[in-house]
């Protein structure tokens, strides 16, 4: 809603902020580099709240943990918003100067009294109130989130509900205050920045914007489809309907990373042609017609990566790729040539300079400056510009250079996969410190921390289901069932279960998850599955 596809703040700011709301994120396990910066902030005195169904290892660092029900984030955010308004703690002058549609928001959250908030989220009203007041009255405060917010059928509304809190209090667009979606890889941000999104050209320029698109068409000498493409969830639907029959997969393992695995496997098997370009022979690659071995980005190629704080940094090649593996630029250029559009094989810097010519936010980032400054944060429109430490400073300018930031009311809708007597336990998924995503990059290494594929439940549930730790259980959802060993963990309350998604071969959690997805972001609701757990006799 603020019109930029990145976190507003820098790592440096989390180290000096006064209040941190870590919401739907177990960053200590899943985003350890960011969490190091966050710990510095805590050591420097920041008060920290974590909102998470589980009391994770991140929550152990927090002054207060709010044990919310899975999928109740909007309810909690709306309750916090209402409390800030009713307690007179909203930043009236900021709201007036920098935002629009406050009245709509205020009216929409009016029903979210502390009592109702407690009823829906499970978090005691007094604790919600305390967090609301601390956040609103802090000099600087940040809300940081990850997949606990975005892996829901209403992901975009979840994010909007958090943005509203920042707009309500003026905790955005200032040094130390901000909204920070933490990225899970060193270059997730860079992928989006470079236009690996169905509706965006590089630099977040809208593909449906004729002027923006025209610029690319002029330089590339070729027309670009004028409509947004399909995001992954829509692509899967289109493959199902044979609308898409060929797939080119670069550095992804959808056969194991997507929700409802048996469904995605049948969809991929139904394709006429699939190419996979990867540094590993993933499960998806095993299913492919052609595999293009790629070079490892961090050691075998030249280029750049962009971190969660929008900082573009250079990556240098140290080794030649093994065997027939090739740099991605190489592969794509050669493919283009075979398709009759030879443009030679540009160096990484040549490709980058072309991007700089097309993407205004990268224009000032020459390789020379990236070297000299040790990376630059976008936007950096020209070679005199130092880069931008935090975004949306314009909100505080007078007069405002742009349209005010709109409040968007966010009605709460519970998770799609309902809890019933038949499926009474809420299963949520996440990462562990020792493993990475579907294990493609981490399962080849041993770790003393690695727990393997298992399900964790509350000790109380273990007792009531007559289970002992290590027992094999059958976990069934409305879509599938798997058998895994069960362990008890105090981070879980009765009725809540957890599985990591790192071990698709031994514990294929995505056999269970629901592919209900957010129509705006295309993200599936990995975080909320209704399951039944039974002892395997």
């Amino acid at each position, binding site marked *: 809603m603020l019109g930029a596809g990145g976190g507003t703040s820098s790592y440096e700011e989390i180290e000096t902020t006064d209040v941190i709301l870590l919401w739907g994120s177990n960053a200590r396990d899943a985003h350890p580099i960011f969490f190091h910066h966050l710990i510095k902030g805590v050591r420097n005195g920041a008060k920290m709240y974590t909102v998470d169904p589980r009391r994770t290892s991140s929550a*152990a*660092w927090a002054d207060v*943990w*709010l*044990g919310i029900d899975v999928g109740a984030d909007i309810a909690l955010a709306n309750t916090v918003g209402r409390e800030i308004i009713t307690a007179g703690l909203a930043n009236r002058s900021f709201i007036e100067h920098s935002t629009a549609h406050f009245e709509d928001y205020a009216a929409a959250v009016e029903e979210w009294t502390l009592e109702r908030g407690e009823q829906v989220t*499970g*978090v*005691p009203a007094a604790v919600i109130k305390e967090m609301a007041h601390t956040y609103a009255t802090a000099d600087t405060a940040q809300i940081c989130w990850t997949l606990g917010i975005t892996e829901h059928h209403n992901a975009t509304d979840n994010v909007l509900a958090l943005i509203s809190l920042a707009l309500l209090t003026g905790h955005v667009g200032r040094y130390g205050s901000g909204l920070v979606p933490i990225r899970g890889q060193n270059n997730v941000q860079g992928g989006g920045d470079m236009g690996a999104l169905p509706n965006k050209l590089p630099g977040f320029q809208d593909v449906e914007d004729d002027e923006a698109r025209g610029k690319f068409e002029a330089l590339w000498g070729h027309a670009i489809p004028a409509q947004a493409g399909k995001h992954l969830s829509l692509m899967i639907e289109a493959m199902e309907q044979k609308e898409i029959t060929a797939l080119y997969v670069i550095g992804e393992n959808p056969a194991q990373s997507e929700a409802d695995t048996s469904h995605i496997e049948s969809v991929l098997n139904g394709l006429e042609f699939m190419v996979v370009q990867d540094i590993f022979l993933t499960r998806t690659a095993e299913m492919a017609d052609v595999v293009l071995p790629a070079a490892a980005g961090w050691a075998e190629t030249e280029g750049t990566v962009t971190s969660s704080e929008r900082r573009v940094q250079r990556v240098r090649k140290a080794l030649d790729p093994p065997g027939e593996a090739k740099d991605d630029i190489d592969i794509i250029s050669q493919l283009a040539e075979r398709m009759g559009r030879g443009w030679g094989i540009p160096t990484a810097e040549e490709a980058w300079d072309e991007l700089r010519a097309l993407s205004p936010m990268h224009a000032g980032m020459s390789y020379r400056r990236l070297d000299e400054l040790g990376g630059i944060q976008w936007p950096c429109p020209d070679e005199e510009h130092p880069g931008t430490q935090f975004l949306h400073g314009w909100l505080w300018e007078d007069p405002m250079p742009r349209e005010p930031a709109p409040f968007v009311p966010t009605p709460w809708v519970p998770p799609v996969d309902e809890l019933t007597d038949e499926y009474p336990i809420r299963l949520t998924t996440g990462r562990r410190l020792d493993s990475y995503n579907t294990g493609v990059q981490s399962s080849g290494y041993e770790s003393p921390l690695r727990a393997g594929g298992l399900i964790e439940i509350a000790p109380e549930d273990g007792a009531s289901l007559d289970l002992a730790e290590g027992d094999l259980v059958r976990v069934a959802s409305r879509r599938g069932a798997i058998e895994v060993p069960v362990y008890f963990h105090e981070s879980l309350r009765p009725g809540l279960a957890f599985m990591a998604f790192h071990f698709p071969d031994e514990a294929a959690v995505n056999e269970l998850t629901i592919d209900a997805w957010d129509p705006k972001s295309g993200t599936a609701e990995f975080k909320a599955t209704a399951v039944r757990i039974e002892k395997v006799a």
Partner: protein
Amino acid sequence: MEVPAAPAERAAVDALLGAPESSWDGAHRTAADGRVAFGGFHLAAARRELLLPALHAVQSEIGWISRGALDYVCRRLGVPPAEAYGVASFYALLSLEERPPRVAHVCDDVCCRPHGALELISALNDAIGPAGTVAEGATWLPSPCLGQCDRAPAVFLQMAGEADVVLTAASPEQVLAALRSDGSITPGAAPVVVGEALLGRIGTVDPTSLASHVAHGGYEALQRAVELGPAAVVAELKASNLRGRGGAAFPAGVKWEAVAGSAEPVRYLICNADESEPGTFKDRVLMEGDPFLLVEAMTIAGFAVGAERGYLYIRGEYPAATDLLRSAIVQARAAGYLGRSVTGAGFDFDIEIRRGGGAYICGEETALMNSIEGLRGEPRNKPPFPTQHGLFGQPTVINNVETLMNVPAIVTGGGAAFAEVGTPQSTGTKLYCVSGAVARPGTYEVAMGETLAALIDKAGGPVGELRAVLLGGAAGAFVGIDMLEMPLTFEGAAAHGVSLGSGVVMLFNHSADFPDLVRRVAAFFRDESCGQCVPCRVGTVRQEELLARHLTSGRPLDRALLEEIDRVMKDASICGLGHTAAIAIRSAVDLGLLESA
């Protein structure tokens, strides 16, 4: 995986910390615990200073700290188990391995060694077995100096579930009876205490009674200090030129002035009562004989420098002094001499006792601060000095017991009068711990400037033919009989290339086994080096090996290597332990004391 603690272990910890409030800090889990938890870094940081007291609580109730007990302490305090393990394993009095309920720590250090300790150890060997052997719920272990050198040999009895006890002039029968819990433990003979000023009240004033303290002029100094105001108190202290009695001889007034003038509102006072320099016992004598005066002295110091909280860090092997001080603090608090608005004078001051865990290094001021903070007792780099960045990072005055106990007289009599005694650079009187081959071992107070010979005369003269005096403890030096006329002042000692240190005067006669003693000193430093910095960790080992090579194989002593090790430890160690670890050994070599070997 967390191991559950036994009920008795939990009870020991809860007795100190109170009952836990949620499952997140150790209570039985309720539905509310699934919805909210209060904890995190800040709470854990605030509770961290309770780590050592909590470990002590388990150790003294159970006799050792099991994995379950350690995990429970960690849960209660929010300390990562690895860190708590690092702290627990740092201290000799805390055991992470199962120990029987009664442990005799038998001093085998330089003074007790030739005065009955070796015979005692041999008897225990015969009766129980080698050190560490468990028999009938008891064992024995060798120990460094226990601060009872005037009544050697000494044994510290660490007793699970009951009060720890010290045996002096201990016989094997006594120790074995105590280990078997046969009957009551008879207190040792009263120590010899000779002196007028600091020691003048000892034996007269009742150390268990505030009323007795007040009847003997107690709290007149505090009243006078309040009349004078903090700045004038500091000025009197500066005028007195009182220099620190812990060994470093730093002017106390300079420390006080620095902290009193700090812009930081939160400041601390620490009384360093971790007297563990081998051969030193005078602070114990002061604390056991006149605890209320120390409490009053600390209160004056807190008032003068603007500290509202004082810590008294006392050796773990001093149970009697600890009990007396604990009782003195409770009585003083009840009578309004500690706490909010002390004596109605409008300033707040209170004292907390922290018990050491059996680590010589914690006598070093910054190691002591780390120990209070619940960290391993490893010294910090200086600067910054404690007056700027001390306990919990705040400006801190840290003074030795004897230093502080000079303060009341300075306040009542004035700094100038105090400075009239002694020499301009060494004012007042000084306590000496006279032990070893001497007629009347004990604590002697003499005016600064008395000669070593006069002091020895006061103690009845040497027993046998005097060969050397260990001056200043293990960190001090052996001096020969040609130096007996040396005046005992800071400058007089320095002129002879030695130091008064903590006031150790240990006599050795013709029968002393110097090679054995020197190896014991080397072993002491190797054992007590905290291991944090390489020069000391490695240097103390190399030094011991070098001596062993010479003394067991008869090969010539490698003096060049000894000097090189000394230089490296002096140049590059973080703290005084490394700086002084070779002094006594080199002095023994220089005096030719090893040559009879």
